[in-house]
């Protein structure tokens, strides 16, 4: 099996700030690939680059061998029908019920009868365990339920690729367990390819087939869960163990404390 997504030596900056400098990532078909890294490192940006919402300054991003970067707007919209993204907030439409949210992509992109759409929606909601919540509004759902409803919406068109943006952030242990199970099971049952962007180490090590660790504008480590656990990089180990100080310093760079408080006299 080939690769579904190939990120080839990209450079990306926001204003003056360099986010990526020569990052390359491949996402094999049918696998779960995780991208981990500290907060603020631009993990969500990576997903937006794959979705074509942002464009890299240099380098190429290919989806099923077609370059996302050089696609026309209409080609890009066509390609996006084959991918979907689970946003951190869920991004459910607040003026619609859960049922209508899940039906939304089907109504927009297919000419199916309402009966068939209702059946598909019920099956998708059943897969995430929320068939009973179909008539609820997003404001009535808990955080975990909202994310599962959004997951049902993102699989409603049976995409090839699904991108998860911090799926475990702010979830209680039960919701987290449910999401871990869903990501793995949906990937295998629906023959999906998944990219999970997260900083929750424990959960990701249990489900990811291959892991990249992003820090300091580049990939600092990659491999299977075991390879990552045994990595000899101090930065990777600091990240995995959650140590407060290390290659990523506890203190944001500042002038010497003694110097700035007492002018060096103390």
């Amino acid at each position: 099996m080939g690769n579904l997504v190939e990120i080839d030596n990209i450079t990306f900056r926001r204003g003056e700030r360099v986010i990526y400098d020569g990052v390359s990532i491949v996402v094999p078909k049918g696998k779960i690939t995780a991208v981990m890294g500290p907060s603020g490192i631009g993990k969500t940006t990576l997903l937006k680059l794959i979705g074509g919402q942002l464009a890299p300054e240099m380098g190429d991003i290919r989806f099923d061998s077609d370059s996302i970067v050089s696609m026309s707007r209409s080609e890009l919209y066509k390609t996006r029908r084959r991918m979907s993204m689970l946003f951190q907030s869920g991004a459910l439409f607040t003026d619609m019920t859960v049922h209508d949210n899940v039906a939304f992509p089907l109504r927009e992109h297919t000419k199916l009868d309402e009966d068939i759409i209702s059946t598909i929606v019920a099956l998708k909601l059943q897969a995430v365990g929320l068939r009973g919540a179909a008539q609820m509004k997003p404001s009535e759902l808990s955080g975990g339920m909202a994310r599962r409803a959004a997951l049902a919406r993102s699989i409603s068109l049976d995409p090839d690729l699904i991108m998860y943006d911090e799926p475990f952030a702010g979830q209680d242990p039960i919701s987290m367990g449910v999401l871990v199970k869903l990501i793995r099971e949906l990937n295998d049952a629906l023959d999906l390819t998944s990219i999970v962007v997260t900083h929750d180490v424990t959960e990701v090590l249990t489900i990811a087939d291959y892991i990249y660790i992003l820090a300091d504008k580049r990939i600092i480590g990659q491999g299977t869960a075991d390879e990552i656990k045994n990595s000899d990089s101090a930065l990777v180990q600091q990240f995995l163990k959650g140590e407060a100080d290390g290659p990523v310093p506890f203190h944001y760079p500042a002038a010497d404390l003694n110097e700035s408080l007492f002018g060096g006299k103390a």
Partner: protein
Amino acid sequence: MNFFQQVGANTLARLTSIGRAALMLFGAIFAMPSLKNIPLTIRQVYVVGVQSLLIIVVSGLFIGMVMALQGYTILVGYGAEGSLGPMVALSLLRELGPVVTALLFAGRAGSALTAEIGLMKATEQLSSLEMMAVDPLRRVVAPRFWAGLFSMPALAMIFSAVGILGGHLVGVDWLGVDSGSYWSLMQSTVELQKDVINGVLKSLVFALVVTWIAIFKGYDSVPTSEGISKATTETVVFSSLAVLGLDFVLTALMFGIE
């Protein structure tokens, strides 16, 4: 030097912002033909138009009543209180109807549009539409733009009509101006092309500007609570200033040169 750099940077930022606003407007205008958009547009007409009716009707009524009261006290001194009808009607149709409606619309519906679109951006709903291969310009911006464009001229006409009735209530029913002269002088003075149609044209221009500013400010807002609050304020301030400035230009073009 720093001062000039700042001025240059601000000017460039303004120009790029106008460019983005123009691109968004074109996107919204060309997104009209889709059949799927029609129910969405009708729903928005309800939200921005029908739900603004109360404030428009109440304001129109009171403004008409106040004008009749003020007009009567001045006209009666010249024995010309019979001209109250044309005075009320012309002021409303030419000026107050379109202008006050636009100002009220900016405050009632414009700010709501900005906040709604800004919040959709902050909660990643616009991003998720894009990722679902649904163009937010077509799905979110266009229906609101067209709804604003249809609603405001209708609201302005309702405003003027209610204002004229308010003028009748005070001038005729209360102060005793002859009902026949109120209506017949109005009928003979008000011209369809010059007064009514020009008023509607003004209102259309204001609708375009106010809705455009409201939608763009939401679409272009910084997706934080502070950013949305700033965008909402800017919508009301910029659209009010634009309406008043444009009103002078349009009045000069329509009525200034005889």
